[in-house]
């Protein structure tokens, strides 16, 4: 009977797995010709195949790319199999994935000239136990994004580590159905950024020593706008006080050092059960998008933001925006844990901490006209529900 109970789930798994029976493993080793050998393996792999990166350091001169559905790229560990792009001479990223049902796991990408790993239009992708690092630490000359899935559905990024990105460590853009969990993001401008995306869970991550820990943004004028239904929960957002080192022009260049969680525009953002500690500007910030835009689809204000059950440590003692120090001084030396520009709509505050509002009345109004005040408690207008993210059946089973 024991045999039978074991066999049944195994059979079910085997049936659910759509990979061909004769899946092959293409093993690649570092050393002479690694660029061509690895790229050729990525091209010749068939759906269901695995490209296995033996331990060691792969010295690469050009970006790599994968365009075959259902392929797994697996290394011997995030500190063992290292794709080293220090000598990269071409391409906009280290590794580019443009196919569906891809699993990337257990390897590292170092010092890519542009982004670390980008996946575009790659549905049902998994990033598992990946390390993307710019080894010199914070530097405006580092690549923009570490882990960068964009324009896709069903994205899982977990147990990964990103350090040194001059924009966001983990950036998910213009996508939907997203889980970002148990990652460590350290010394990036933004630790994790969910932008112009819907249905996202950002949970159990450690975001530390970034400029801003976790950002939930929506920008106008892009193919996909109207981000929302985002859960930011059970994260440790600690010591995000690194000076902003993003090149000017990028939206994250405007993020003040000392930001914990920041919501810009978006509808339906839940910030719950996080530990928010020692972020010197603000633990939670809600602001409207203030630049000019021409996009009828776009709502520049944060709408339906919920904060509940968070733990707030010290913070707000060195606000990194014009006039911030004066406001802090007026409020007893530090800003309250939550800050709004005053332009939000339907803020559901279940935590008891005070909120400072800059008292702006219209989107685009200059900060110079701010009238800082402690936000008076307001009755909850509309309850805001979060619809949990469900990844497609069988997706996570690929990791077993």
């Amino acid at each position, binding site marked *: 009977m024991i045999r039978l109970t074991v066999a049944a789930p195994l059979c079910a798994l085997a049936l659910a797995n759509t990979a061909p029976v004769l899946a092959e493993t293409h093993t690649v080793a570092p050393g002479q010709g690694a660029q061509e050998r690895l790229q050729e393996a990525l091209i010749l792999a068939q759906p269901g195949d695995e490209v296995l990166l033996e331990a060691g350091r792969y010295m690469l001169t050009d970006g790599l790319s994968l365009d075959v559905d259902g392929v797994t790229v697996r290394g011997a560990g995030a500190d063992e199999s290292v794709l080293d792009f220090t000598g990269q001479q*071409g*391409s906009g990223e280290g590794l580019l994935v443009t196919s569906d049902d891809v699993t990337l796991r257990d390897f590292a990408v170092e010092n890519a000239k542009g982004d670390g790993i980008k996946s575009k239009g790659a549905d049902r992708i998994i990033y598992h136990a990946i390390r993307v690092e710019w080894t010199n630490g914070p530097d405006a*000359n580092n690549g923009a994004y570490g882990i960068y899935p964009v324009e896709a559905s069903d994205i899982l990024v977990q147990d990964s580590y990103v350090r040194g990105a001059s924009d966001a460590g983990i950036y998910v*853009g213009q996508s939907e159905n997203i889980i970002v969990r148990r990652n460590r993001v350290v010394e990036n401008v933004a630790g994790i950024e969910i932008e112009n995306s819907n249905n996202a869970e950002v949970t159990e991550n450690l975001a530390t020593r970034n400029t801003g820990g976790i950002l939930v943004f929506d920008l106008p004028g892009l193919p996909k706008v109207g981000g929302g239904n985002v859960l930011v929960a059970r994260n440790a957002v600690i010591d995000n006080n690194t000076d902003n080192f993003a090149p000017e022009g990028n939206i994250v260049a405007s993020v003040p050092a000392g930001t914990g969680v920041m919501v810009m525009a978006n509808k339906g953002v839940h910030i719950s059960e996080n530990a928010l500690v020692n972020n010197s500007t603000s633990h939670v910030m809600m602001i409207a998008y203030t630049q000019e835009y021409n996009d009828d689809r776009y709502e520049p204000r944060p709408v339906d933001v919920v904060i509940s059950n968070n733990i707030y440590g010290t913070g707000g003692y060195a606000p990194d925006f014009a006039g911030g120090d004066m406001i802090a001084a007026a409020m007893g030396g530090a800003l309250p844990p939550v800050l709004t520009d005053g332009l939000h709509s339907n803020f559901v505050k279940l935590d008891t901490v005070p909120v400072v509002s800059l008292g702006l009345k219209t989107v685009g109004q200059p900060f110079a006209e701010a009238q800082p005040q402690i936000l008076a408690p307001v009755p909850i207008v509309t309850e805001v529900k979060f619809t949990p993210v469900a990844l497609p059946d069988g997706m996570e089973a690929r990791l077993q």
Partner: protein
Amino acid sequence: MRHSVVLLAASALAFGGAIAGGAVPPPVVVNDALLLGDSMPRTLEEFGFFRKRNGTDPAPGVVPYELNTPLYSDGADKLRYIYLPDGEQLVAVGDGLLQFPVGSAIIKTFAFGEGANQRFIETRVLLHRPDGWLALPYRWNDEQTEARLALAGARLPITRPDGSEISYRVPNKNQCKTCHSMDGEVIPIGPKARNLSKEWLAQMVEAGRLSEVPAGSDSMPDWAVREGADTAALARAYLDVNCAHCHQPGGGASNSGLDLRWEQDEPHALGIRKPPVAAGRGAGGHKVSIAPGDPDASILVYRMDSAEPGIAMPELGKSTVDEEGVAVVRKWIAEMKQGNDAT
């Protein structure tokens, strides 16, 4: 008359060869079965696109063409051909991309050097197979006798006509697709009616190999004789040819929201006062893609003017800055009125 069609001449030669029967080597015929099959031939020669092993003297059905405004590729010379199977023809769809029948191919050889010193570096082929287009790169050997499939691409030292040494990149198969893609499918990008000469199109129609000469054809300026041409037309043609294959809806850089196609007239989509999205250090400290009247504050110019990966645009197929292209785009932006969105 630089756009000549050798199709008829080539056919005549083939016919002559057949009549002579054995007096001359049998004519090379394009291997249609191979082209339509599902293999990736190891050598270019197997296709039979050329009569000579050195990749010259096109076979019957292989027709050379030129573009009014070409894509910059580190100053490489390009020899472009299309192949149409017997009895098939191209269909013109407005001023856009010509429609190629299944079984056709586009062949492009990249070369450096003049006259007897000309050396072929690589030949890229696009095959229109029943299940879609396939892009393959072939790299020529030093002896110039054979071009072999280079799936993973290559990087090799090249001396350019001006004497400068560069590290030239032969793209890998996936990189071919990075530019040649629309909604994830491989497509041709070069042969658009608006960028082909009326003479060539008319000759193709006359030869029965093109449905018609469409309205709007030959509307892009001739880059080779651009002095005195309208700056905006030159710049927009340049951007269409060099950037728009990625920067358009469905293209490789669709998420940027930047659309640099010839037919796009909405200022924000073209980058005018448009903030960057994912430019990273490619923004170069600038706040918008195009700052009207101020090329030095425009991300577009900054990235075109760089050869450094992570900053340089285009991201692929470029190791050097196209100074002439930058100059034209610079002038176009400088001439824009700051107060309005004149394009």
